[in-house]
């Protein structure tokens, strides 16, 4: 099977949250609590153990023709449906000590719920802050890329439910091309601030959830240089080797010196 991907085009997103609802219904996820955030129409704020799709409501300065509202009243809205990035080099997968996190045949990063023992090391290994442990359940959860549906030959629930085809699902290479074409179309129409978010230069070596956004990706909480924890391993084990050598040397010298 080929490598599949999402392309989430925020210029088409209308903020209806159908993807969130579809995701929760298909995957039978619980609620996220009922907290008011005070930040636009977003009370979920981030993806987590019970939120695998999350629509971000980015409010910009009022601007005519943007956000679909009269510029004197409402901010120019930008929406983007966030999701697990299913990294090419996945920090969570590398960190998992039980082998519960695996790479599926279509490229998805999947946490096997029957293997995970809830050590929560993946939580501090995800550069996008996606994986979270469900404290009540004890295990870590995140988007499965609808692996069950994909295996049945279907598209993920969010992509299927999206009414504007803001969430596109397909082969990774084809979607990368499609994103470039769409970017050109947008620029030719005067949307000069459109960008593709696909950090192939960083140590995650690319993602399987591409994003097409307007403006700086950081406005959507997308890090410019996501780094997988493995980049720090060498330095860490070198320091551990120095520590071990120093401890051996110090104890040897201390007991030699203590004899006198």
């Amino acid at each position, binding site marked *: 099977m080929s490598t599949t991907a999402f392309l989430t085009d925020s210029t088409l997103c209308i903020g209806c949250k159908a993807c969130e609802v579809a995701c929760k219904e298909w995957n039978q996820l619980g609620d996220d609590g009922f907290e008011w955030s005070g930040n636009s129409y977003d009370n979920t704020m981030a993806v987590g153990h019970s939120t695998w799709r999350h629509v971000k409501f980015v*409010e910009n300065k009022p601007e005519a023709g943007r956000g679909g509202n009269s510029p004197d009243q409402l901010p120019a809205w930008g929406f983007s449906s966030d999701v697990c990035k299913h990294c090419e080099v996945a920090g969570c997968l590398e960190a998992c*000590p*039980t082998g519960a996190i695996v790479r599926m045949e279509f490229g998805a990063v999947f946490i096997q719920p029957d293997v*995970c023992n809830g050590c929560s090391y993946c939580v501090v290994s*995800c550069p996008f802050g996606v994986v*979270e442990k469900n404290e009540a359940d004890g*295990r870590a959860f995140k988007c499965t890329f609808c692996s069950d549906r994909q295996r049945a030959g279907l598209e993920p629930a969010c992509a299927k439910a999206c009414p504007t085809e803001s969430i596109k699902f397909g082969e990774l290479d084809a979607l990368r091309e499609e994103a470039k074409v769409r970017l050109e179309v947008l620029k030719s129409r005067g949307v000069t601030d459109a960008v593709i978010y696909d950090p192939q230069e960083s140590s995650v070596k690319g993602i399987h959830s591409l994003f097409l956004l307007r403006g700086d990706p950081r406005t959507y909480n997308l890090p410019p240089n996501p780094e997988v924890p493995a980049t720090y391993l060498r*330095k860490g084990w070198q320091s551990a080797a120095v520590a071990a050598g120093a401890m051996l040397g110090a104890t040897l010298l201390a007991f030699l010196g203590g004899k006198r």
Partner: protein
Amino acid sequence: MSRVPLPELPGRVPDSQSERRLAAIRREAAQSGVVSGKGVAPEGSPFPIASPQTGYYGVPLLKEPQWKPEVPLYFFVGGAAGASAVIANMANWVGDDRELARSARWMAAGGGALSSALLIKDLGVPSRFLNMLRVFKPQSPMSMGAWTLSAFSSFSAAAAFANLMQVKLGASIPVRLVENAAGALAALSGLVMSSYTGVLIGATVIPVWNENVGTLPQHFAASGLNSAVSLLELLGHDNSRALNLLGISASSYEVAEGVLLESKRHRVNAPLRKGWSGAIVRAGGVLSGPVPLALRLAYAVSGNKKLRRVAAWSSIAGSLLTRFGWVRAGRASARDHRIPLELSHQIALQKPA
């Protein structure tokens, strides 16, 4: 006609504290045009705007570490146990101090067992702890740690048991061989035990941890050695010159580490200086570095054992605070969205045009 009961008044009694707070809100609103903290954004007020300056409303990008207090406690116990396995072997082979070796062996074995218990208790699904041993993954410090802990707790228990056999049943060369072999393996894995926890937290996405990955393993190893020496002294080995020398070297390293951390004053290290995490890390640093170093040197000159005992208690407290402080600093660091987003220091609150 029945009397209609008077409506019940809200039960809060105004006091000086409540009135001061209301005055503070008024002052803040008058000065800055907005009141920080939780609340509503009324019409006309500066409503929050997502921007390249603020990120996504300042919402944390990373998830906070979800470890329970068992984990920093394990860092302490495992570090001390690992170091005491090393001490046991050196005391046995080089120092010729069988009594010290015996205590250190038992401390290593007890610490190994307690470490396993603490780690299992922290798991979300403790009954699945053996899943840690279904794969061997060098790229995962957590996997390496699970295997190291398994090896360490087995070997240190074997060494302590072989030691006990000889105490109860008399000296025997084969049992002595077993004790020495198990003890050597325990010391070898003990070296990893006391330092790998620095790699464990250093090789993560938490900025304050990975920023210091180059010295965290050394820092934790010195902290483990410091607490192992101190615990052994408090167990009655306060005549051993070697232990005092070891305590001096460990606390000297802690002084150097403290100076290094204090000199790196960039914002990634802010949780090591500011807030509760900063207070705990700094208190831990003082209690495991300069305080025991001065006391131990004073003991070496004066021979006053009281000084040495205070140094031991100080080192143990410092070592504990260090581990709890670093984990807490990691939580504070995860909450700071500016570092992974590479935003400038100040959060600018934009007003709508």
